[in-house]
C-alpha cells in the first residue's frame, strides 16, 4: 500500500508534465530493500514500473525519454540496494555463526558453551531441581590419527565422530558407537572416547572454574580408558587370527647368578601395519583394552612367570 501510494503521488503529476515528485518512489524502495532483501525489492521494482506506466499512459506533453531513464535508474538502484541488503545480512549471519562455532565440525565452540553454561546456571537459580551437568567428550588416540595418517584423515575421522555425536544420547552409547572402526586413508582406525561428567555449581562467578573441573574429570576418565591407536586395530586382528605368541626373557641378577624375574613379550608373527617386526609388552595390550581377550592366550604362561619370579 505504501509503495502504491507513493507511486501514485510520484507519477500522477507526470500527466501534467512534471517530474518533481518522482524521487518519492525511492523511499518505499529503500524500505523494501532493507526489510526484505533482493527478492522483495524485485517485486517492488516490478510493481512500480507497471503502476508508473499505467498511471502515466499517454500523457500529453510528457518527455518519454525522461520517464524511461527515471524508471531505469530506479530499477537498477533498487536491485543494487536489495543485493547490498542481502549481502550485509548474510555477512552478519556468517560472522555470528563463525564466532560461536568451530569451522571444521560446525559444533559449538567454547564461547557458546560458556554462554549456555551461564544460561543453565540462571535456569538453576529459577528452578533448583534443574541441576545442570556437562558431558565433556574427548576422542582417545586422535593425536595418533593426525600424526600417523595426516591431518586430512584426522579431519575425516573427526567429522565421522561428530556424526556419531549428533544423537543426544547417554555417554555409554556414544563411547560404544565411536569404537566402531573407521576407514580413512585406506586404513582402518579404531577410536574410543573418554567422557568426563561434571555437575555445575550454581554460582555464575565460578562457571570458568567449573569448566576446569569438567576438563579435569575428562582427563581422569581419559587416563583410565585411553587406548593406543597405532596398535589397537592390528592387535585386535592379530588376536582374532591367533598371530600373537608369548615369549619370555629371563632377567638375571649378576650378583646372584640366577633369574630373579621374567619379562613377557607378546610377539606378532605375520601381523602387518608396522607390527610384524616388533614385540610389545602385554601391558600395552592391556592398555588397549585387549587384556581380556589376550588373557585366555597367556593365562598359563603368566602363572609360570609368577612362579619364576618367586624363585628369588
Amino acid at each position, binding site marked *: 500500500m505504501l509503495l502504491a501510494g507513493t507511486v501514485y503521488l510520484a507519477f500522477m503529476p507526470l500527466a501534467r508534465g512534471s517530474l518533481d515528485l518522482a524521487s518519492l518512489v525511492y523511499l518505499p524502495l529503500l524500505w523494501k530493500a532493507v526489510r526484505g532483501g533482493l527478492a522483495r525489492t524485485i517485486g517492488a521494482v516490478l510493481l512500480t514500473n507497471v503502476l508508473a506506466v499505467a498511471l502515466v499512459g499517454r500523457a500529453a506533453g510528457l518527455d518519454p525519454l525522461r520517464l524511461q531513464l527515471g524508471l531505469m535508474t530506479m530499477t537498477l538502484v533498487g536491485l543494487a540496494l536489495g543485493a547490498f541488503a542481502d549481502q550485509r545480512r548474510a555477512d552478519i549471519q556468517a560472522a555470528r555463526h563463525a564466532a560461536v562455532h568451530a569451522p571444521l565440525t560446525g559444533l559449538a565452540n567454547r564461547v557458546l558453551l560458556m554462554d549456555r553454561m551461564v544460561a543453565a546456571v540462571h535456569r538453576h537459580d529459577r528452578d533448583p531441581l534443574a541441576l545442570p551437568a556437562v558431558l565433556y567428550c574427548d576422542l582417545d588416540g586422535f593425536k595418533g590419527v593426525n600424526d600417523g595418517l595426516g591431518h586430512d584423515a584426522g579431519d575425516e575421522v573427526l567429522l565421522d565422530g561428530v556424526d556419531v555425536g*549428533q544423537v543426544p544420547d547417554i555417554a555409554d552409547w556414544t563411547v560404544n558407537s565411536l569404537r566402531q572402526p573407521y576407514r580413512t586413508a585406506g586404513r582402518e582406525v579404531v577410536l574410543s572416547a573418554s567422557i568426563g561428567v561434571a555437575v555445575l555449581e550454581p554460582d555464575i562467578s565460578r562457571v570458568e572454574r567449573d569448566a576446569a573441573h569438567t576438563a579435569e574429570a575428562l582427563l581422569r576418565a581419559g587416563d583410565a580408558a585411553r587406548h593406543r591407536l597405532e596398535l589397537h586395530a592390528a592387535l585386535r586382528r592379530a588376536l582374532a587370527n591367533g598371530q600373537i605368541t608369548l615369549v619370555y626373557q629371563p632377567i638375571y641378577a649378576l650378583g646372584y647368578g640366577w633369574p630373579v624375574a621374567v619379562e613377557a613379550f607378546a610377539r606378532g608373527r605375520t601381523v602387518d601395519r608396522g607390527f610384524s617386526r616388533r614385540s610389545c609388552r602385554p601391558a600395552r595390550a592391556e592398555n588397549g583394552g585387549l587384556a581380556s581377550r589376550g588373557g585366555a592366550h597367556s593365562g598359563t604362561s603368566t602363572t609360570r612367570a609368577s612362579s619364576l619370579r618367586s624363585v628369588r
Partner: protein
Amino acid sequence: MVYAGTVAVLLHKVRIDPRLPTQRDVMWFLVLACMGAPLLVAAVQVVQNNLVGLLSWQDLPGDVFGFWSGSATGIGVLAPALLVASRRWPRLWPGRPPLELPTVPRSRLAWAELAV
C-alpha cells in the same frame, strides 16, 4: 548474439551464480546484462535504423538513450525476477550447491545444548 555473448561472459569468465545469491553476482549482472549489453544493442539498432532512413542522424544520442533505457528497464525488471524465482527449483541448476547459509543442523545444536 550480443546477449548470448554477455551470458557466456557472465557464466564462464566472471563466473557468477545465475541465481544471484551474492552482491557480486547482482552487480556484475546489472553492469553487463542490464547496462552494457543493452547499450551496445541500442547503438547498433539505432545506427541500423539511421542507415535505412527510419531515424535521423541528428537524434542519434536521444534515440540510443531511449532504446537503451527501455531495454535496460525490461531486463532489470524481468530477468532478476525469473532468476531469483528459479531458486525454488534446484533441478534447473544441476551441479550448483544449495544456497542456504552454512548453518548447523538442529541435531548438532542439540548435542551442543546438552549442558542446558
